[in-house]
C-alpha cells in the first residue's frame, strides 16, 4: 500500500525511539500477519494523555512511524465525542468536564478497500488490546478551569449568639462561568466565636467578630460576621388552628420578644415537630414537613410544632384528621374502540346545543361521538386523514372548528387538519394546513381567533383562524435549544412543555410583557430537577389567589426503577401467544406555584410510583389526571398545595378501565380526562372513550 505524503501530524522521531521500536519488530510482524494487515504503522501521541480545561485548547501531536521505526507522513483522522471535546488542526478544545478518548485512524488513499487494522498500539489504554488496531486511542480528561473567585453568601452579617445559620458559597472561573457543585472547605478565623461545619452550617458561640472562609480548589472567599449578644427573652408560638386535615397547609408564626419587650424579626429560628400518631395509624417516619413555619401533615395524629432559637423554644400543638375525600364512581357509558389505539379526545357542546366528542386513533381516523346522553354514546361519523396517527384533538372554545394533528402522512408534509364544526354531528374538513408544519404536528391549542400548532419539536406557529378555510401564519416562536412537546395558551400566555428543559412561558397577548400573536415575547423559563415535561395545565385557584402549573412527565421506559416492566404495545396474538402485555410507564405531576412568574416555586407533587402520568385537567379544585396504566386519578387540589398530595390522602377516585376485548385486554392506559356537565369523560388507549360519574360523598363509606 503506498503511503500518502500529506501529513498533518507527523514529525521526525528521535533516533533513540527508532532503536526502541526496532527491538519489538518481531512482535509487529507476527501480529500483522495474523490480522491480514496490508501495512502496519506505529502512532505515538504527544502527550500520551491529554488534559485540557473547559473552554481552552491544548496541542495534540501524533507522530507516525513505519514498522522499521522510520518516520512517515500519514493522513490521520481524529474523532472524539463532540459534546465533550473537539479536535481540529492539532488542537484539542475542552467542552465538558469528563474523561474521554480520542480515536485516531489512518486515512488511506482512495482505493477500493481499506485495511482492517493499521496501527500498532504498544501501550494501550485500559480496555484496549496491545497489537494491531484500526485506531489509536488517546485518553483525554477535560477538567474545570481554575477557580478565580469564591463568593460567600451571607444573608445578614449580624448573627446572634447561640443561633445557627446556613452559609453558601459560589465559585467562579476566570471567564465568569460558575463551578457546578463545588467542593467547599469551610473555616472560621475564631472557633470560640463561631464554628462552621462541612455543610456550611454556622453556629454562633460567643460575642465577637469572626471571618468565615470558603475554599474551593485553593481559591478562597470570605465574609466577616459580627456575633451579637442573644437579644431575646422569649418566643411565643401559636397554631393557626387547633385542628386540620391531612394536606392542609398551616403557616405557624413565632413572635420573638426582646429584653425590652419589643419584637425581634431577624432572629433565625429552627423548626421541628414531635408526632404522636393516632392509635390506629402506623405512620411513616416523616409524617409531615415543616419549613420556615409552614407545616403540612400526611398522616393523622397530634403534632407539636417547635420553634427554637438559641436556648429558647416555643411549642404549639395541632390535631390533624384524615382528609376524607373519597368518593365512589361508576361507569356511565362507553364509546368502544378496540381495533386500534385511541389517543387524544375533546368534549364540547356543539353549535346545535348537543354534546359531542372527537377521538383520535393510531389508524389515522378520528371518530365523532354524540355524548349528549353519556349513558348512550353514539358514534355519528368518522374522518379518515392521510396520516398514520391522529395524535391530538382539540376544539376551539366557540366550537367553530376542531384541529386534528397529523403525523406520518404519506407525502411527509403532515400539518394539521382543520374541521368545520358547523354541523358537529358530521364535521367536514375545512382545510389541511401544512405551512411550516411539514415535520409533523404533535400537539396544538385552538383559541377562537388563533391556532397554536407545534412544528415538530422545534417550536410552534400561530395561525390566524378568522377564516378556517384560509388560515394563515401570523407568528411563530422557537425557543433556543427547544424540545417542545405541547403548547397551551391561557390568558394570553403560551406555556410550552419542553421535556427535560421544563416549561417555556411566552406572552402572546397578555400584554404584561408586550407580547402578541404576531410578536411573541419570552416571559421566563421554568425548570426544576426531575422534570420531564410532557404537558401541563395552568390553574388559577380562587380560594387562595394562587396560580399553579400542573406539569406532567411522560417517561418511557422505566429503566433504573425497581419495576422496569414492558414498553411494547402489541395486542395479544392467539396464534403465537405473543403480545398482550400491559405497558409500564413512569413520571409524576409537578405542581409549581407560578403566582409570581419571576419567582416560580415547585411546591408539591402527585406521584404514583409504579405508573406514569400523561394528560392533566384541573377544574373546580379537582385534578383529573390520566395516569396511563394507573387509570384515571381524581385528586382534591383544594387550598394551598405543598408536599406529597398522594400521601396526604387527597385522592378522591381511582377508576381503571378494564376491557377483556381491548386492543390489549384488561390493560388500563388512560390518555387524559375532561369533566363536562357533571360527568367525567376520558380516553383509554386500549378501549376508547368512557364516561363515568362521581357520586356525592355520602354515597361511599369512609374508613
Amino acid at each position, binding site marked *: 500500500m503506498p503511503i500518502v505524503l500529506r501529513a498533518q501530524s507527523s514529525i521526525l522521531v528521535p533516533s533513540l525511539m527508532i532503536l526502541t521500536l526496532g527491538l519489538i519488530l518481531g512482535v509487529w510482524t507476527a501480529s500483522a500477519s495474523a490480522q491480514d494487515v496490508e501495512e502496519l504503522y506505529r502512532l505515538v501521541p504527544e502527550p500520551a494523555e491529554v488534559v485540557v480545561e473547559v473552554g481552552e485548547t491544548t496541542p495534540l501531536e501524533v507522530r507516525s512511524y513505519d514498522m522499521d521505526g522510520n518516520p512517515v507522513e500519514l493522513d490521520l483522522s481524529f474523532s472524539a*465525542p463532540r*459534546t465533550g471535546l473537539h479536535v481540529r488542526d492539532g488542537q484539542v478544545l475542552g467542552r465538558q468536564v469528563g474523561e474521554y478518548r480520542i480515536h485516531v485512524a489512518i486515512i488511506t488513499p482512495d482505493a477500493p478497500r481499506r485495511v482492517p487494522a493499521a496501527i500498532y498500539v504498544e501501550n494501550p489504554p485500559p480496555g484496549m488490546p496491545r497489537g494491531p488496531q484500526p485506531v489509536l486511542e488517546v485518553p483525554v480528561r477535560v477538567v474545570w478551569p481554575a477557580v478565580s473567585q469564591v463568593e460567600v453568601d451571607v444573608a445578614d452579617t449580624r448573627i446572634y449568639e447561640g443561633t445557627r445559620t446556613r452559609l453558601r458559597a459560589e465559585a467562579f472561573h476566570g471567564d465568569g462561568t460558575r463551578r457546578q457543585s463545588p467542593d467547599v472547605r469551610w473555616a472560621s478565623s475564631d472557633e470560640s466565636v463561631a464554628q462552621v461545619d462541612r455543610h456550611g452550617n454556622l453556629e454562633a458561640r460567643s460575642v465577637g467578630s469572626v471571618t468565615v472562609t470558603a475554599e474551593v480548589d485553593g481559591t478562597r472567599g470570605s465574609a466577616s460576621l459580627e456575633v451579637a449578644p442573644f437579644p431575646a427573652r422569649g418566643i411565643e408560638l401559636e397554631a393557626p388552628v387547633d385542628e386540620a386535615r391531612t394536606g392542609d397547609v398551616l403557616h405557624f408564626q413565632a413572635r420573638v420578644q426582646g429584653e425590652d419587650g419589643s419584637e425581634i424579626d431577624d432572629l433565625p429560628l429552627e423548626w421541628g415537630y414531635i408526632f404522636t400518631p393516632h392509635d390506629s395509624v402506623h405512620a411513616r417516619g416523616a409524617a409531615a414537613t415543616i419549613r420556615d413555619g409552614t407545616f403540612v401533615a400526611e398522616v393523622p395524629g397530634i403534632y407539636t410544632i417547635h420553634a427554637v432559637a438559641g436556648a429558647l423554644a416555643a411549642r404549639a400543638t395541632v390535631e390533624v384528621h384524615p382528609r376524607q375525600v373519597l368518593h365512589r364512581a361508576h361507569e356511565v357509558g362507553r364509546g368502544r374502540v378496540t381495533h386500534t389505539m385511541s389517543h387524544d379526545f375533546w368534549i364540547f357542546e356543539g353549535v346545535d346545543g348537543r354534546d359531542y366528542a372527537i377521538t383520535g386513533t393510531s389508524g389515522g381516523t378520528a371518530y365523532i361521538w354524540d355524548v349528549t346522553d353519556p349513558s348512550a354514546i353514539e358514534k355519528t361519523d368518522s374522518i379518515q386523514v392521510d396520516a398514520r396517527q391522529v395524535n391530538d384533538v382539540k376544539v376551539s372554545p366557540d366550537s367553530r372548528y376542531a384541529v386534528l394533528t397529523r403525523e406520518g402522512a*404519506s407525502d411527509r408534509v403532515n400539518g394539521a387538519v382543520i374541521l368545520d364544526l358547523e354541523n358537529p354531528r358530521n364535521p367536514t374538513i375545512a382545510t389541511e394546513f401544512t405551512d411550516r408544519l411539514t415535520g409533523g404536528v404533535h400537539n396544538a391549542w385552538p383559541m377562537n381567533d388563533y391556532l397554536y400548532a407545534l412544528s*415538530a419539536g422545534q417550536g410552534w406557529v400561530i395561525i390566524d383562524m378568522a377564516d378556517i378555510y384560509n388560515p394563515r401564519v401570523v407568528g411563530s416562536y422557537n425557543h433556543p435549544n427547544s424540545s417542545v412537546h405541547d403548547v397551551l395558551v391561557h390568558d394570553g400566555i403560551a406555556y410550552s412543555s419542553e421535556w427535560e428543559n421544563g416549561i417555556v412561558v411566552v406572552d402572546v397577548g397578555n400584554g404584561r410583557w408586550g407580547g402578541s400573536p404576531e410578536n411573541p415575547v419570552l416571559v421566563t423559563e421554568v425548570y426544576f430537577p426531575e422534570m420531564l415535561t410532557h404537558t401541563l395545565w395552568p390553574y388559577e385557584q380562587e380560594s387562595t389567589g394562587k396560580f399553579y402549573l400542573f406539569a406532567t412527565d411522560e417517561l418511557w421506559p422505566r429503566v433504573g426503577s425497581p419495576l422496569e416492566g414492558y414498553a411494547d404495545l402489541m395486542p395479544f396474538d392467539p396464534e403465537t401467544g405473543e403480545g398482550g402485555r400491559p405497558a409500564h410507564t413512569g413520571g409524576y405531576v409537578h405542581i409549581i406555584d407560578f403566582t409570581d412568574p419571576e419567582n416560580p416555586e415547585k411546591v408539591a407533587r402527585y406521584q404514583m410510583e409504579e405508573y406514569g402520568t400523561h394528560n392533566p385537567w384541573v377544574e373546580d379544585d379537582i385534578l383529573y389526571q390520566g395516569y396511563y396504566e394507573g387509570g384515571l386519578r381524581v385528586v382534591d387540589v383544594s387550598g394551598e398545595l405543598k408536599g406529597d398530595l398522594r400521601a396526604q390522602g387527597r385522592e378522591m377516585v381511582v377508576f381503571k378501565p378494564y376491557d377483556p376485548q381491548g386492543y390489549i385486554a384488561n390493560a388500563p392506559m388512560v390518555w387524559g380526562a375532561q369533566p363536562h356537565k357533571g360527568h367525567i369523560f376520558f380516553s383509554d388507549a386500549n378501549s376508547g372513550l368512557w364516561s363515568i360519574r362521581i357520586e356525592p360523598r355520602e354515597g361511599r363509606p369512609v374508613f
Partner: protein
Amino acid sequence: MRGVTARIHSLVVGGVLLGSILMAGPDPALAQTSSAPEADYWVWVGAESDDLIHRIRFGPDGAVMEKQVGVGVNPTETEGPHGLAVSPDGRYLYMTTGHGTPDGMLWKYELGPDTLVAGPTRLGQFPASLDVTPDGLFVFVANFNLHGQHVPSTMSAAYGPELYEIEQIELCVMPHGARASPSGNRIYTVCMMDEQLVEVDAGRFEVARRFSVAEGSEGPIEEHGDHAGHHGAHPGGGVMSHDDLGCSPTWASPHPEGDRVYVACNRGDRILEVDLAGWSLARTFETGRGPYNLEVTPDGRLLVVTLKQGNAVEFIDLASGETVGRSETSTTVVHGVALSPDSRYAFVSVEGVGQEPGKVDIFDLESFQRVADVPVGRQASGIAFWKMEERP
C-alpha cells in the same frame, strides 16, 4: 401507533414467521423469464409509521418476513425508523429514527441476536439516510430536517464502535441521502432545496466539494464562505430560486469503481452522472416519473432507480446509458433500494399510503421483473442488504 397490521402480527411467533401469507414465491406469470434464486438473501427494512424494523429472507422457497423488532423508546409516539445500514462485516445494523425531542437518534443493533447494543445517540433534526464506511469506523447521517421553515441542516459524523457523534457538518437545506465512496474517504449527499451534490471529506469531517445540479448550470460550485451551502448556489456563485432549478435532487450514490457518482433529480425526471476526477457532468439519463433513490450494482453494470411518483423501478445499463427495464411496484410511493452482492436482485421498499402495509418488492436484475413482494409495516422506507448464503 406501534402495531403493524393485525395480519402481520398474527403470523409472528418468537420473532419467526410461521404462516405462509407473507411468503411470496415467484409470480407464475413472471417465472417464464425469471429463474428462481439459488441462494438465500436477507435484507432489513424499516417501517417508519409503525416503529418496526423487519428482516426479510428471499431464496429458492420465496420471500418471507422472518422477524420484526420494535424500535424506539416511547410507544405512544411515532419515532420513525428511517435510515438503515449494515456494517461491512455484517455484524451490526445502524438505524436512525427521525422524530425526537426534536433531534432524532442513531441506534446500533447486533445482528443475529438482533439486540440493541448502543444508542440512542442524539443527532440533528430528522436524521434520515445513513451509510457506514468500509472499515466500519464511521457512520454518516444526513439530517434531513423537513420541519418548518427551510434552514440549513447538517450531516452527522459518528464513531461507529462507540456510537458517539463526532461532528455536525453544515451542508445546506434538506440534505438527503448518504453514500460512502468505495474507499470510504468521501461521502456523497444531495441538497433537495439547494440543488447541490455535496462531497464530504470523511476523514476531516468537512465539506470537500459542491456541485450544482440545477438544470443548465451543472458544474462545480465555488466556495464563497457561508454562501455556498445556501439556496440555489450555482457555478460562479449567486442565488437562484428553487422553483427555477428543476432537479430537486434526492439521492447520490457512487459507482463501485469510485470514479463516478449518480444523482437522482426527483423533479427533473433524470439522473446525472458526475465524473469525480473532473468534477463535471458526464452524462444525463432520462427516467420515468420521480427518480428518488438509486444504487449501482456491485458489478458496475446497472443503475437501479426507484421512481417514487412513477410507482416503478427503472434499470439503466451504464455502458450504453439506455433504460433496459422498468417494472411497476406492488403498491405506491416507492422508496429505497438495496442490491445483492452478486448483482442478481434488487430489494425495493415501497411505503404505501395511509393504513396500507408497506412492501418489500424484489426484482430480478436479469429479467427486470418483480419476482416477489412481502408486506411489512406501514411506510416502509430505509432498506439495507444484510447477507447472502449459497444453498448447499
